[in-house]
């Protein structure tokens, strides 16, 4: 009997919950009735459901609270609302007066939805994945030299024109024409290692590379072909008796099956794209895990074994002259989340130094000498002022801002969309009468200005500028892929 009562209670609870849920349809609470914006609320809604309604319809919590309390008239800054009870549970909130102008699709408006943009033209980050292996059934894309890749589209000899479009050219439909050959269309372009997405455009029509089985969603109902421009080759000499050799590592989460090597001329080989950085790896030879016999760099894996290690990319040597009496010098920067106990520098005859791998980008850092934070005395580039100043380092910079003249200025700052228009941001340095600052910038559009002794100016040597919301202008810079 007790069990039956429990069951009834549970059933009752489920029913009430279900009723509560069934009555909450946030897209069905608002209509325009007789020209008035009208909401119908249910007093059984949970606080979370009321909050959701407030979020969807831009109704603040105070207004909602008063509405649920059935306050007959609610006056807001721009609105007057009336409230009435419809029945036991339902309440009607009706906008009787809206003093705001109301949105106007005005006389010269183009309508934009401010959503995140999804696009065929979206750039693919070529370092967005840690590794990649191609799946080509025919050599439609071939790396023909260290930095050149040839794309080939077989057939289509009757076509008038064929273009190659992809993440490498900003999905331009006109900038990479393919040339006709006796068996198809071909073009060779420079590519750095990484991941690229692409399509062909045959007489104006988008087409996929049917010989490339590696694809990804183009977010528009189709797909893009994916190509990895390789930069690394794993090699295991010998082991010719083995039936299967797999390379596995930190880059693929130690997957034991995925990256099978191929036996070529008495060795096992795998070409692939591998993102720069430090990678731990091992070979699995017929289920036996081994380190790379040709690689002397091994480190403990923390479980009593060793892993092989490779470092891809440039290693910077941070150094600090002097401080012979210091006991401890630490490198700290935004590249290691300003960790002050991680990157200990080694003492040398002339000072302190530490090798460290950094990907292309812009970084801020400081040295900590026996607990005291200092900027790098050997680096003239700084950001910020006074105590909050940091040394600045651009790895593989691809643009140098140059402000000519103004040699009598005392202080010139570079500020723009790349640093959130920080007014104490990038402090330019004077070189031979010009003010300069180099940055690594991803492809895309940037707007910027110089602050010369507190006065904002656009770049006098850049004819591209656009109007801004302050009635002045911002210089415009496009960085190509």
């Amino acid at each position, binding site marked *: 009997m007790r069990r039956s009562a429990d069951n009834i209670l549970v059933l009752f609870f489920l029913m009430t919950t279900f009723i509560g849920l069934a009555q909450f349809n946030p897209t069905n609470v608002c209509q325009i009735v007789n020209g008035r914006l009208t909401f119908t609320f249910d007093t059984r809604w949970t606080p979370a459901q009321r909050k959701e309604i407030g979020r969807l319809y831009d109704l603040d919590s105070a207004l909602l609270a008063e509405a649920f309390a059935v306050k007959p008239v609610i006056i807001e800054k721009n609105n007057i609302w009336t409230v009435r009870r419809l029945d036991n549970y339902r309440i009607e909130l009706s906008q009787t007066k809206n003093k705001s102008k109301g949105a106007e699709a005005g006389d010269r408006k183009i309508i934009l939805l401010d959503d995140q943009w999804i696009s065929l033209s979206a*750039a693919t980050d070529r370092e967005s994945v840690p590794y990649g292996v191609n799946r080509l059934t025919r050599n439609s894309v071939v790396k023909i030299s260290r930095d050149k890749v040839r794309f080939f589209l077989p057939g289509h000899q009757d076509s008038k024109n064929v273009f190659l479009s992809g993440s490498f050219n900003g999905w331009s439909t006109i900038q990479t024409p393919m040339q006709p050959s006796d068996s198809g269309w071909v073009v060779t372009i420079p590519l750095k*290692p990484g991941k690229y997405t692409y399509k062909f455009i045959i007489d104006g029509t988008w087409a996929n590379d049917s010989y490339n089985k590696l694809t990804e969603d183009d977010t528009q109902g189709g797909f893009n072909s994916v190509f990895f421009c390789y930069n690394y080759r794993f090699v295991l000499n010998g082991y010719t008796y083995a039936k299967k050799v797999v390379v596995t590592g930190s880059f693929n989460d130690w997957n034991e099956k995925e990256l099978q090597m191929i036996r070529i001329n008495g060795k096992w080989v795998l070409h692939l794209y591998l993102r720069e950085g430090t990678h731990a790896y091992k070979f699995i030879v017929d289920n036996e895990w081994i380190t790379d016999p040709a690689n002397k760099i091994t480190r403990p894996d923390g479980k009593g074994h060793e892993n092989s290690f490779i470092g891809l990319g440039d290693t910077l040597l941070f150094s600090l002259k002097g401080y012979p009496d210091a006991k401890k010098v630490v490198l700290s920067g935004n590249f290691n989340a300003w960790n002050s106990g991680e990157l200990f520098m080694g003492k040398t005859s002339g000072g302190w130094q530490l090798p460290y791998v950094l990907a292309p980008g812009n970084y801020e850092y400081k040295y900590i000498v026996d607990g005291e934070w200092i900027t790098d005395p050997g680096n003239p580039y700084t950001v910020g002022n006074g105590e909050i100043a940091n040394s600045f380092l651009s790895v593989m910079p691809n643009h140098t801002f140059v402000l000519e003249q103004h040699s009598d200025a005392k202080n010139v700052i570079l500020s723009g969309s790349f640093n959130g228009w920080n007014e104490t941001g990038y402090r330019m340095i004077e070189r031979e009468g010009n003010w300069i600052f180099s940055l690594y910038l991803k492809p895309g559009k940037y707007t910027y200005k110089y602050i010369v002794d507190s006065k904002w100016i656009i770049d006098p040597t850049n004819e591209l500028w656009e109007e801004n919301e302050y009635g002045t202008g911002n210089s*415009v810079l496009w960085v190509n892929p």
Partner: protein
Amino acid sequence: MIIRPGFLFSYHLIFIAFAVAFPLVNQAGNGSVKAVPVMMDRVSFAGKPIADPQGNFIGVTIPLKRAGHLFLLEGTVDNVIGNFILDTGSSGLVLNRTYFRNYMIIDDEEGGGVTGSTGVIARINVKRMMVAELVYTDVSADVTPLGHLENRRGVKILGLFGMSLLQNLEIVIDSRNNELNLFKLDRNGNRLGTPSTEVKFDITHKIEQFNNIMFVKVSIGGRILDFCLDTGAESNVLSIDVPRQALGTVTITRRSNLLGVDEGGGEVLFGTMNDFTLGTRKFGSMETILCSLTALSDKYGFPIDGMLGYDFFSQGKIYINLIKKVMGICLKPDERQ
């Protein structure tokens, strides 16, 4: 101090090369949640007619790209390369002042807007403009700041590609395959050179044209309303001032405030048109925003009840023949009912 072996910079930056280093590039956006609509400055609508495009073609296919819910086509203006927004809601060519600032101004007009993109619209002439096989020479264009459009969509926008650039052509907007097909027409509106392929339309409907802008009559809640066809609208728009019978069929799904420099901004409603009929075809539901179209109507010199934008053009393949003044639609299979 950082040292780079091999390259001794004045501040002693040294890189020890282990392998190759590569720069990062942009991440692709991958969202789909719509937020606040923003209305950007557009055109002076009273552009002078632009000559038909030159170029040796009878029919041409131009690949379209997308930026958000805008259709882009790539081309050059006096050797400047970039994208145009395909904008059937503009009467002519509008260029981004960022790239065409130093041209001689023929005429100008005060502009302004709620989003703060104030500025003067000037008129200039460009010598040569090319989009695929379409070649235009000595083209009159309005010039206005469009940098804010670029900043919101992250692509280089040379300008807006309006209707007078497509006059005397049959226009086929194929959103599914991302292409724009254009066909030269004779004076009767038939395709030149090749016989028109018989296309079985799901919907055919009369188009009216005023100031180069296309209008269609639609029915919502039994009321006949005038909508303009506007590929420059990322969403359909329904006037908040349409009759109550029409508004009563719309479900409001969201409300938001438009941010602008004007005092108070404005209220924007998002909704679903549940009783939208074009010709004999009733559309199940189409998303729209609701706001005032009074100023736009004043500018067009024609009362407008709504705009058919991306949500409409993504329904299928849209054929527009302005000589025959007719529109045909082949709905996507999943849109057929």
